[in-house]
């Protein structure tokens, strides 16, 4: 049942109590291992993705801590230079290809998209399961390569070095190539689902904003991933057989490699961050108890970012020898991304304004997210200015900038999504106090980690260096201390969420009294999402207050 529906919602009552006993939740409908491993239920697939994605987040996080420990002192601390090179490469590869890209789309997209569209499943459930196994195959191959030597090229594996290094490049790159297929399959699945599976009543402009964000993300996944797939194969071939495609000694052009690489890898940033924007659009409305401000602007700006994101890749190559004219052009196009992001930020703030804010854990993460997005975005605009980028290029300033966006925005949204949808997914509630404490720790720890890195970069410390001069030590120690705080925050979250999974109090169907479509069914949902006939959706997804009635008392 839909509790606390202030406005009558005829038909939006999918679950009926007399069916209750006959329709177990998706969690207990089949308890054998086979029923999980071979399931085609999007919710179970989402959960399995969650398990693996968290595991790889742990792996990537351990690499990050190792890097920070090594940089605690100016000289060698805990590892030799070659191990350090491998460590930062693996940190980047694991975090980007194994964690960040599938994190929100494959976990929460998978789980929520059909629920938000009033569908029983995604359009191609078996392909959905396949994408999980493709992902795992690629991940295992990449991990095998990492354990058998690892590679020291940085996650960007620029040629010609990646073609000549003696470390094991080929299996890792081929693993990443396979993971790309998983990303493509997920993207196709979500686009087709959005086009064909919307329930009666859910028109394009009545879709929840998370769906818009996932849709835009899927478009990028489908259009950009094949290019890096090809590139990964070419570099693998180059590394194994020496075809010379990007080898300057044989007439090849390494800058061409960089163009193709960033043609994917820049839009990939939006694969990571657009779903985060989507999550936040849901949360800001639900916890401000207020209709989203400027629904269409938020929806269109997702598509705008996806579109403009394809034309900004050159800003990674300001010092690679591309023409000044191209540099200027890419600089301007980069700033257009800032325009669309600013539209979103403005609308989120507009949503909170005069809302009845319910300051729960997801909203705490929203606050952190807003700070990181604004500062990460503004430093991004600064970096997109050619004249400023040249001194900052390949310094810790860039490292801090993209961590602000990729970790700051995306991880905040990932954590917010876990906390917001935890009762939806598991039907249980975590401890709110611990949630707020760990959110505070994480936001503080994150700032303490990366603000020193902004300063380091501005003082000229280059990225990826094993040693640094004495005068940079204080800031490096601060950064490492911040990273420890961050790690501590994650440990607390892992503990109370694991506890809540088994012993948390039963949450009820809609503990947040959210108007999101996904909350209209039971929590956790039954196997086919709804019991009884196809529900219809007469209300808007972010409809908390009737604007006609709400404006009257305030109109002084």
């Amino acid at each position: 049942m839909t509790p606390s529906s202030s406005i009558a919602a005829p038909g939006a009552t999918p679950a009926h109590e007399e069916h209750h006993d006959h329709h177990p939740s998706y969690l207990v409908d089949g308890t054998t291992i086979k029923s999980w491993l071979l399931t085609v239920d999007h919710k179970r697939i989402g959960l399995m993705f969650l398990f693996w994605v968290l595991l790889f987040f742990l792996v990537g996080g351990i690499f990050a801590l190792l890097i920070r420990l090594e940089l605690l002192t100016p000289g060698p601390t805990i590892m030799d230079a070659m191990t350090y090179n491998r460590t930062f490469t693996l940190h980047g590869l694991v975090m980007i290809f194994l964690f960040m890209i599938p994190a929100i789309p494959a976990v929460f997209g998978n789980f929520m998209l059909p629920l938000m569209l009033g569908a029983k499943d995604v359009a191609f459930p078996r392909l959905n399961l396949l994408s999980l196994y493709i992902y795992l195959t690629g991940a295992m191959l990449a991990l095998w390569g990492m354990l058998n030597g690892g590679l020291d090229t940085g996650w960007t594996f620029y040629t010609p070095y990646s073609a000549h290094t003696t470390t094991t490049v080929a299996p890792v790159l081929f693993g990443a190539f396979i993971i790309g297929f998983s990303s493509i399959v997920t993207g196709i699945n979500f686009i087709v689902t959005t086009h064909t599976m919307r329930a009666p009543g859910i028109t394009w402009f009545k879709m929840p904003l998370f769906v818009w964000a996932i849709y835009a993300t899927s478009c990028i996944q489908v259009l950009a991933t094949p290019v890096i797939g090809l590139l990964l194969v070419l570099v693998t071939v180059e590394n194994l057989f020496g075809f010379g495609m990007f080898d300057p000694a044989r007439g090849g052009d390494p800058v061409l490699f960089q163009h193709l690489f960033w043609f994917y890898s820049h839009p990939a940033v939006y694969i990571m961050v657009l779903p985060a924007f989507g999550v936040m659009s849901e949360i800001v409305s639900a916890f401000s108890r207020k209709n989203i401000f400027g629904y269409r602007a938020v929806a269109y700006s997702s598509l705008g970012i996806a579109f403009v994101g394809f034309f900004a890749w050159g800003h990674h190559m300001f010092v690679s020898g591309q023409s000044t004219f191209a540099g200027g052009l890419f600089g301007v196009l980069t700033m257009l991304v800032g325009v669309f992001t600013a539209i979103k930020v403005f609308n989120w703030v507009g949503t909170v304004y005069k809302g009845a804010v319910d300051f729960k854990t997801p909203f705490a993460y929203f606050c952190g997210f807003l700070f990181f997005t604004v500062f990460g975005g503004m430093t991004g605009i600064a970096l997109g200015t050619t004249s400023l980028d040249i001194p900052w290029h390949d310094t810790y300033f860039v490292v801090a900038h993209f961590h602000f966006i990729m970790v700051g925005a995306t991880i905040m949204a990932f954590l917010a999504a876990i906390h917001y949808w935890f009762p939806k997914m598991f039907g249980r509630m975590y401890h709110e106090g611990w949630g707020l404490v760990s959110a505070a720790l994480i936001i503080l720890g994150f700032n303490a980690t990366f603000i020193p890195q902004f300063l380091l970069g501005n003082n000229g410390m280059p990225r990826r260096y094993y040693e640094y001069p004495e005068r940079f030590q204080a800031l490096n120690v601060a950064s490492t201390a911040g990273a420890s705080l961050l790690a501590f925050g994650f440990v607390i979250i892992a503990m109370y969420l694991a506890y809540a999974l088994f012993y948390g109090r039963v949450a009820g169907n809609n503990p947040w009294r959210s108007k999101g479509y996904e909350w209209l069914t039971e929590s956790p949902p039954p196997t086919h999402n709804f019991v009884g006939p196809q529900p219809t959706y007469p209300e808007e997804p972010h409809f908390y207050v009737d604007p006609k009635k709400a404006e009257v008392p305030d109109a002084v």
Partner: protein
Amino acid sequence: MQSSASTAGAPAAPVPRLAMHFASLEVQDNAARLGMWLFLTTEILLFAGLFICYGVYRFLFPEAWAASSRSLDLTLGTVNTVVLITSSLTAALAVHYAKTGKNKAVAVQIFLTLLMAIGFLVIKYFEYHHKFEIGTLPGRYYFYEGIQLPGAPMYFTVYFCATALHGLHVVIGMVVLAFAMVRALRKGDFGPNNYTMVELGSMYWHLVDLVWIFLFPLLYLV
């Protein structure tokens, strides 16, 4: 064969299977078709990367490109183009017969398509074999005396990457079509309501054909 048009409220339709999460067969077929179009888009972008490499290196080494292109066997290339375009016709005819439920004809047309695909691969094999003999090979394997221009090995890097990737797609397309052929023979259940499998296989085959139509002039007719 099933002849009545599928409607939203027809759960009893025995052929083909309506998955539980779709509202109607029409939606299900539309979803499959849209998914295939999106997949074809990704394939085009996959080749687009190679075409960009081609464009850049042709711009850098125009003489080597022209000379290397001459060293290819234009006759074999043309024959292969004709073979592949004809195979697209038979693939399209297979869809036509699937729509009208003539399963025998579907199998025959797909069989002809597969024969031509094998013909294409055999001709390609002879072309490759010749290159391995005279030494027009990629990168550091290049040992052909006839063309000693900078960039000639690069031409063959692009040539081999592009044709090998295309050849792989030919093989994948053959496997997909072979499944449809076996189904037409064994079950024979293609009909007005159930031809999506043949249609999608055929769409993929047309893409393979289309890529070759671009590769042929780019590689052979510089």
